């Protein structure tokens, strides 16, 4: 009763095709944006911004990237971490060669490099599917990791073997490097994530997004409707890897500040994959939910015993959160492949019909 479109009649196809056709959803999004862009920067502590919000948003963007490929185009990938690495190393090389060019431009440009790498490693998808494809993306993961370690040129032959983020400014304010404040870095990330999520939503609801879902659901029929598998699959790899690449560049430049190859290892890939599974395959909202859940849960579990004054060993809390996440992944894989986002939708449907549980509309 509280949440429904009653009385909100669409008078045009344009209104019906809008991203958020229901008014309550639009109000909700407005509130979220208000919190994200105004309340958090003004009110939240540096710890909350730097250790919760920034990583959450970086992972969200990576999850959007992987979800486009796996959830929307149906191509399983285990190489997300490596594709993020390509973006990060590309951004590092670009900004050391061209220190005067705006770092934000370089971040967006570095995604192109990982898109290109994504296309190359997407080529096998034209021949193989499912688990076998996942194995080839795993090969990509290990090969790229090897490159990050062995090719000194990528990290400018630093003794540490790590890429160290230099200071870069926007309008005379430091936005990267040690002196950039968490709030400033947060504002950069949240703007990019909001913008790129909108772009993803637009692409997904148009011709190209449909062609990905067609290939995912029934590739034979898709080909018969004139979709070329080559274009559809490789464009999905490119688009998805672009997002992962930008997420990787943001991760190093706006979050952790320096990174070695290990930062982009298989664990990182799996973490993002878990976010997509728990959040929901084929849902952009799910990317936010999954990233929030998996990033924040361990922090919360660590905080709870402290608040209760209990003395629990750090390793124990870590094990507890791993167990919870593991169980949830199994639960979602078996029971609800559309993840938290689907549960949220079911909840909304219940709200629509409440208090009349049996009316369907």
């Amino acid at each position, binding site marked *: 009763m509280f949440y429904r479109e009653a009385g909100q009649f669409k008078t045009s*196809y344009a209104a019906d095709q809008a991203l958020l056709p229901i008014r309550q959803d639009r109000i909700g999004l407005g509130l979220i944006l208000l919190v994200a862009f105004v309340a958090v920067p003004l009110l939240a502590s540096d710890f909350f911004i730097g250790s919760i919000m920034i990583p959450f948003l970086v992972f969200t963007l990576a999850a959007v990237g992987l979800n486009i490929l796996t959830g929307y185009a149906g191509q399983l990938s285990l190489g997300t971490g490596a594709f993020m690495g390509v973006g990060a190393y590309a951004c590092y090389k670009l900004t050391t060669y061209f220190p005067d060019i705006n770092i934000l431009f370089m971040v967006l440009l570095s995604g192109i490099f990982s898109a290109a790498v994504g296309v190359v490693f997407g080529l096998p998808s034209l021949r193989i599917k499912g688990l076998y494809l996942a194995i080839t993306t795993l090969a990509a993961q290990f090969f790229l990791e090897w490159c990050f370690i062995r090719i000194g040129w990528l990290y400018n032959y630093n003794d540490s073997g790590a890429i160290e983020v230099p200071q870069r400014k926007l309008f005379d304010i430091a936005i990267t490097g040690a002196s950039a404040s968490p709030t400033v870095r947060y504002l950069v990330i949240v703007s990019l994530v909001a913008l790129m999520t909108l772009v993803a939503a637009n692409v997904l609801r148009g011709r190209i*997004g449909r062609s990905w879902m067609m290939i*995912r659901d029934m590739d034979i029929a*898709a080909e*018969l*409707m*004139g979709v070329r598998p080559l274009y559809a699959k490789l464009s999905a790899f490119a688009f998805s890897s672009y997002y992962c690449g930008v997420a990787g560049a943001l991760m190093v430049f706006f979050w952790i500040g320096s990174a070695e190859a290990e930062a982009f290892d298989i664990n990182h890939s799996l973490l993002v994959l878990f976010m997509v599974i728990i959040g929901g395959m084929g849902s952009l909202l799910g990317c936010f939910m999954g990233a929030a859940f998996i990033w924040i849960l361990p922090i919360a579990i660590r905080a709870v015993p402290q608040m209760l004054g209990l003395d629990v060993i750090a390793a124990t809390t870590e094990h507890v959160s791993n167990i919870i996440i593991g169980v949830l992944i199994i639960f979602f894989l078996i029971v609800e492949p559309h993840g938290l986002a689907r549960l949220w939708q079911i909840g909304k449907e219940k709200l629509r019909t409440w208090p009349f549980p049996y009316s369907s509309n």
Partner: protein
Amino acid sequence: MPTGKQVSVDQYSGSTADQDRSSMDLTASKPVSETSRQYTTELLSIENVSLSFGGVQAVTDISFNIMEGEVRAIIGPNGAGKTSLLNIINGFYHPQEGVINFRGKQRRRMKPYQAAASGIARTFQNVALFKGMSTLDNIMSGRSLKMHRGFLWQVIHLGPARNEEIQHRRRVEEIIDFLEIAHIRKQPVGRLPYGLQKRVELGRAMAMEPELLLLDEPMAGMNLEEKEDMSRFIIDLNSEFGTTIALIEHDMGVVMDLADRVVVLDYGKKIADGTPTEVQASQEVIDAYLGVAH
């Protein structure tokens, strides 16, 4: 122009046991079409086509043609090679021998998406919808080839890209009206009952506005009422929009009422070709097909 075919659906015999009655009704229901419907242009012709899978000879030396504007039925017992023939026509299978002419030109070996672009659409024997998408999106997907706005327009989804989407949505809504499926417009097709799924699949093929529509057992597994609806859609599609249709169907009553000409296959070979009454009279057909219960 094709003259309107009239079908009173209660004439469908549904089974071949009722053969006498249905052939009598045939002369009553299609007297005009069999004599005066003249088709002058050949849309597709298949010459001496053979296809084998390893040792299995699916199609053997088959020739037949489809005229522009007609409803051409392909019948035959299970495993006769009907589906394989459709798969050849839309580029899934490549025959080892034979020639295919489409619109008067000999066709080169082509991929399914090329066949689609050349104006051939198709429904499948086992429903092949995009299960995760809504009815609306499934039918919109049939417009893929007609949408051209590039990636950058899609990114902003404003102006021309949005207009294109809306313009095609309008066309899709016409199809939804035509097929009377407005009530399931936003539902994911995976949850729809079988009969409606078949209907959505027809809608998706219609959205391509094909010159040649291949229907592989569009009424299999349907009850009488659903068959009546589907027959009506096929007839309207053919007579109102002039779409040429190749129809695989087991229900002889349906075939006799809808088809202008029938080609009969058995074990991959063509055993008869002609008007429904001619075909029905053929002893070979009776032996191979009509006598056998399906």
